[in-house]
């Protein structure tokens, strides 16, 4: 998901205008983006369809460039040679290796600068280019200026360390072992596109274990900023749900009762049924106040920052299988019925953080023995292969129709299918999935005995 508005990069360093970068192509699509971004950052860009041999033959054009950007698919020894003694007489060039997140460690361990593309914005790209060239010049032309180099390298290491710590901290926000009531299976997965994620899931007890809350959410955007909002939204949802303020739901229900009061000539049963419909269900106050309160807080406190989240928040009564839910602008939950057609649990209100006084309806559905509810984020359905083709909602819905023997098997199958579809293409978005399965009656009995 994208943010509502992306801020402009702001003033770029004037020194960028003097930089020329030689960009060695790998796949044209990526290089087009990267070349355009470098130009936006203020650099002149020369693109070259070279192989390693061409580079090491030292074409004269290298005299005119300040930095060389190489693909991570090239042997790193070539990049190392290019940064050390490329030309004759031995004058080297600053080298950057553009790569995916997973390759950063390998590149940095080889003593090279890694450029995670497309996970940097324009201002960041300008800073990386300029710093790399300046560092390189300092090392080659002013051997005495080793102290600032060491300081900058130290800062980079510190940055990476902090990011890694952030990732670990964020993992702590996910339930280590999702709560699993007797007779049920709950399985969840999250694969982040970057070091930290904007997606999250949560499973927790309400009302002394009488109800189970299940959340799958997708904060718009990716990376550190989305992760900060993830932490905020996850905490608000949990805290408000656990406090269980009945106010917002009762206000909504009683307002409806007042507005819907039948005329004096209506059958008395109409009025009685309306009163019965006004009764709150156990767990519904927690569900409603959590989504309503989080939306209210985000709009009030962070409305100008353009962040929002879609989410599916369900509250399950494990004894009856009844699930009350709010789908706030999220992809539909897919309810796989034993021997029946799948049902889609579609939106019951807008994404959280967009509208003040957003009216959320509470949906209701019952899971019978053997039924499975699948929740996921759009990272799964939008996962693209190298040709740019998405996995797709329809394919997902078709694939999950084949019965699975367990919640884990269903998610394993989805993981495998998405991986086979994407192959080695870059993961653009966080992927989260959750399966809630009511065990068939006999399996439940076996399960209880085992416990």
């Amino acid at each position, binding site marked *: 998901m994208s943010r509502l508005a992306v801020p402009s990069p702001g003033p770029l360093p004037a020194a960028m205008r003097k930089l020329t970068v030689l960009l060695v192509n790998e796949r044209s699509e990526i290089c087009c983006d990267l070349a355009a971004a470098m130009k936006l950052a203020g650099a002149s860009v020369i693109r070259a369809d070279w192989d390693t041999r061409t580079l090491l033959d030292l074409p004269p054009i290298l005299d005119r460039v300040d930095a060389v950007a190489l693909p991570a698919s090239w042997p790193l020894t070539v990049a190392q040679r290019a940064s050390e003694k490329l030309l004759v007489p031995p004058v080297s060039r600053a080298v950057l290796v553009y790569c995916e997140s997973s390759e950063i460690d390998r590149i940095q361990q080889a003593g090279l600068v890694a450029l995670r593309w497309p996970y940097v914005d324009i201002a960041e790209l300008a800073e990386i280019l300029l710093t790399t060239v300046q560092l390189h010049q300092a090392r080659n032309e002013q051997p005495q200026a080793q102290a600032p180099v060491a300081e900058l390298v130290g800062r980079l290491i510190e940055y990476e360390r902090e990011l890694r710590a952030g990732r670990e901290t964020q993992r702590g926000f996910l339930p280590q072992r999702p709560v699993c009531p007797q007779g049920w299976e709950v399985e969840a997965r999250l694969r982040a596109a970057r070091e930290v994620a904007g997606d999250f899931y949560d499973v927790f007890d309400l009302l*002394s274990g*009488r109800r189970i809350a299940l959340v799958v959410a997708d904060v718009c955007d990716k990376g550190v900023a989305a992760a900060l909002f993830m932490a905020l939204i996850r905490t608000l949802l949990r805290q408000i749900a656990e406090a269980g303020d*009945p106010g917002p739901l009762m206000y909504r229900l009683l307002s409806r*009762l007042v507005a819907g009061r039948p005329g004096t000539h209506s059958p*008395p049963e109409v*009025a*009685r049924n309306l*009163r019965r419909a006004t009764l709150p*269900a*156990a767990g519904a106050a927690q569900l409603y106040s959590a989504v309503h309160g989080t939306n209210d807080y985000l709009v009030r406190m962070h409305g100008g920052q353009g962040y929002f989240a879609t989410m599916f928040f369900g509250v399950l009564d494990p004894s009856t299988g009844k699930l009350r839910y709010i789908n706030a602008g999220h992809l539909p939950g897919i309810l796989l019925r034993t021997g029946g057609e799948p049902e889609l649990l579609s939106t019951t209100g807008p994404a959280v953080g967009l509208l003040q006084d957003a009216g959320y309806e509470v949906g209701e559905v019952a899971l019978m023995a053997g039924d499975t509810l699948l929740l996921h984020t759009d990272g799964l359905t939008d996962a693209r292969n190298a040709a740019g083709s998405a996995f797709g909602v329809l394919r997902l819905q078709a694939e999950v129709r084949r019965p699975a023997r367990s919640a884990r098997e269903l998610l394993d199958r989805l993981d495998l299918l998405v991986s086979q579809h994407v192959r080695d293409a870059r993961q653009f978005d966080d992927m989260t999935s959750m399966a809630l399965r009511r065990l068939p009656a006999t399996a439940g009995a076996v399960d209880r005995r085992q416990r």
Partner: protein
Amino acid sequence: MTALGGARASVVTVYSWAGGTGRTQTVASLGVLLATRGLRVGLLDTNLAAPGLHAVFGLSPAAEQLSLADYLFRGSEVETVGYDVTWAVGRTGSAGALLSLIPGWICGADELVYAVARHLDLGLLADGIDRLARLCGLDVLLIDTQNGVNGSAIVALLAADLQLLLVTGSAGEHEGLTTLGPVVAEPAHALLVASATARAAATLQQIRGIPVAAALPYAPELQRFRQALPFVRAHPQHPLTGELNALADRIQHRAQAARASA
């Protein structure tokens, strides 16, 4: 209480705007009178702020522990926190209890903290009422409420098949019942009971069209009454007992009609 299954019990909620109207004694006495007719009756005290129904039957939190608070705050099932008080009926049921009571007392510091400092989960209370009505083999579930405007009384009124509104003409009563607005039922599902004075009930009857089902006579014995016994058992010949008996007839009639239509 024994879960017998079968039809849903009629939920009868007894409410008064003011305190001190004799509401709790009315609930206890109606319970005894209905059980005397052979109906299986459950009594539920939702007045957690000032529970008193248990005292009418001589139960005490010192001797017994479980109450509605265990269901609301501690995770007990609502069907498991009741007591058999059939002894008060003076006859025994052919199968299981004729009269059961779920007290509303608060026991221990943790329940006190829940009751005063946290939100009473109205959904859980509503579910509890529904479970008692569906799963315990009751014919009638009589609910005592907290007076005034409060969440538990609103839930008990909304859940009712029949609302018994005790009116005394006390200050603010008329406005208070107006405040409750559509939570108060239409004439088909509500009865007014004039307690001590009939004038206020007559006024309300004119405004809302709710029939006055009983005019309970002033009974100084009730004011002095300190025995752990429902009034109708201690004073079987009292005019108040006679009025309550007539009221129990109407409730029985309503409950049976509701069952027949269900």
